[in-house]
């Protein structure tokens, strides 16, 4: 449970975790199966409670939900000793919330909003960076309106994927270590970066000294501690993304808008010039790009995609176009392997009408393969696409690129046979080896209405485009073939620095 709580804490997911504890009179005695749950989870929760009397429980549940869901959402733990679980309430009465130390700021400070509006109106090359906060606060339509008004191209973080439709001309896809070239280079060039609901993780920014050096940075976030933590910002605004964007829009709309059409078109042309190649119709073993292209053909905008962690995740983030909020679910901050499959189960149980597809790596899937029993027993019809290259691919990639190809503990071996494994649990399974087959197998899997595992054999040598750790965002290596040479070589330094030690 601790890993799940830490994941939720990093990615601002509201969860209320109820933990069982030994009876109160045994606490602190190292009793059988005693663990200091509160102590362990303090650094990874938004808050936690331990009940010493059943009468405290209603208040804790009420406060727990309030804290988990509001402001910057996060996990709350309630620790319930066994005797308290068995105790009867004297009388149930509804509780008033009593949280004097908890007052999230939702509305942006008018002065800061005014300053931000000025920066935006003066910008010639604005860019919007949209994070998970935009999805949490349901601010996608406001974000889109802002982008339209000021002609700002939009890039997202991993968690922000889906906050802006990625088939829009303004969308540049994901930013960062495994981001799209157009996004990385445009952020480097922009003169005003409007960052909404993101926390500037090192995976998003690359080397901070080289991050968006030409830009006035406006940072909107509901958590004051995120502002100025990693990136020095020019206009900090503490507040809820939706509320602040509405405040901003109401000011901007009254002003004469800048004409950034030229900038917008330039970025759009540049984007078209570096669209990554996704068609590999002849290759066996399959190229992951081809697999993702075929997945994209089958799913629609309402299908919920979850990913595991590693190459599978970054391929999905890089090549898959997400159209709507809350349809791309991934473990960002903690990079929790084994996330994809259980997350898909959760999504399917929460929204049984939606199709749910988990894209996993073989390594991450193996960490949670016992849940094949869960999907079978509870009849949770999700589709699990296991991208099977027999490697812990992302780590293998680092070993190849940055550790002189000293491969260590990343080869998974010949076993298991994923099809047989699934079948042993009574779960429908199919192996996919040829171009075109992913599409067909996935269609059939969704149509079947049964939980299904697709064992998709992919090329183990495929390497991502990536920015080496410690480098600026423009220093992309492992570059995919581009259709045309990109026209602005000046800003693009295709040099590889030695990674900074300790990263």
């Amino acid at each position: 449970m601790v890993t799940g709580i830490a994941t939720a804490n990093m990615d601002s997911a509201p969860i209320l975790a109820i933990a069982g504890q030994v009876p109160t009179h045994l606490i602190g005695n190292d009793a059988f199966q005693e663990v200091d749950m509160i102590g362990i989870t303090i650094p990874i929760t938004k808050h936690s409670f331990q009940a010493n009397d059943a009468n405290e429980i209603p208040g804790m549940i009420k406060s727990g939900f309030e804290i988990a869901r509001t402001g910057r959402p996060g996990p709350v733990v309630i620790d319930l000793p066994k005797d308290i679980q068995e105790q009867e309430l004297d009388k149930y009465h509804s509780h008033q919330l009593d949280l004097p130390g908890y007052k999230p700021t939702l509305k942006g400070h008018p002065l800061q909003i005014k300053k931000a509006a000025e920066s935006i109106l003066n910008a010639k090359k604005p860019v919007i960076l949209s994070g998970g906060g935009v999805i949490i606060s349901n601010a996608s339509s406001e974000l889109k309106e802002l982008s339209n008004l000021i002609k700002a191209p939009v890039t997202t973080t991993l968690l922000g994927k889906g906050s802006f439709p990625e088939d829009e001309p303004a969308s540049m896809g994901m930013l960062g270590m495994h981001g799209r070239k157009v996004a990385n280079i445009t952020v480097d060039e922009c003169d005003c970066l409007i960052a909404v609901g993101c926390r500037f993780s090192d995976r998003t920014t690359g080397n901070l000294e080289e991050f968006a050096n030409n830009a006035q940075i406006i940072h909107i976030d509901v958590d004051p501690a995120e502002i100025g933590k990693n990136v020095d910002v020019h206009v900090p605004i503490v507040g809820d993304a939706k509320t602040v964007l509405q405040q901003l829009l109401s000011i901007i709309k009254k002003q004469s808008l800048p004409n950034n059409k030229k900038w917008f078109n330039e970025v759009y042309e540049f984007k078209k010039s570096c669209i990554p190649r996704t068609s590999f119709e002849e290759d066996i073993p399959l190229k992951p790009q081809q697999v993702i292209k075929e997945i994209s053909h089958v799913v629609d905008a309402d299908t919920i995609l979850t990913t595991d962690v590693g190459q599978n995740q970054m391929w999905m983030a890089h090549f898959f176009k997400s159209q709507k909020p809350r349809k791309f679910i991934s473990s960002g901050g903690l990079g929790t392997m084994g996330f994809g499959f259980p997350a898909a189960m959760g999504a399917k149980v929460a929204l049984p009408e939606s199709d749910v597809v988990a894209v996993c790596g073989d390594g991450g899937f193996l960490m949670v393969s016992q849940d094949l029993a869960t999907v079978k027993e509870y009849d949770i019809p999700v589709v699990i696409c296991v991208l099977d290259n027999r490697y812990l691919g992302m780590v293998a990639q680092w070993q190849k690129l940055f550790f002189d190809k000293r491969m260590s503990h990343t080869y998974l071996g010949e076993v298991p046979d994923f099809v047989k494994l699934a079948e042993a649990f009574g779960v429908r399974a199919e192996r996919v080896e040829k171009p075109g087959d992913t599409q067909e197998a996935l269609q059939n899997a969704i149509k079947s209405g049964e939980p299904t595992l697709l064992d998709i054999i992919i090329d183990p040598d495929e390497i991502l485009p990536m920015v080496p750790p410690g480098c600026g965002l423009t220093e992309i290596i492992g570059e995919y073939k581009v259709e045309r040479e990109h026209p602005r070589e000046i800003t693009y330094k295709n040099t590889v620095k030695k990674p900074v030690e300790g990263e």
Partner: protein
Amino acid sequence: MNERSHIISALVEHKPGVLQRVAGLFTRRGFNIDTITVGETEKKKLARMTIIAKGDDKVLEQITKQLNKLIDVIKVRDLEMENTVKRELCLIKVHTPLEKIRSEVIQYAGIFRGRIIDVSPETLTVEITGDPEKIDALIDLLRNFGIKEVARTGPTAMSRGIKTI
């Protein structure tokens, strides 16, 4: 790095576990706590923590923000050194087997406005309150006689004038 000493005053809910949450934050962000004092305030439900820590301004800003995020923390302020009164209590047990030493210790304690709060045939225990620097000075003086034990509370602090946190 711009390292300097900070006095952080925090009003917190008077509940179990709060100290752990607060102290944990400092350790996690690599900030060393020099002293920390906790006690009840004018309101029964609230406690005041006074924390003295040395470090980089930027890290301190982050810690203050993280402290503010704790649900049990009501208010946090980084007090300005020059506009703050701070006082510490210290008990010093001095080895005084000889009458001559004994009277000297009593004299010194008097100069520092300390009091003798315990006497035994072998020892005298001095209580002193004041600025940490003043306490340092007395301890240095008494060290020559042979100090057996020192217990310091660490400073507690408040803004001068009408300002409260």
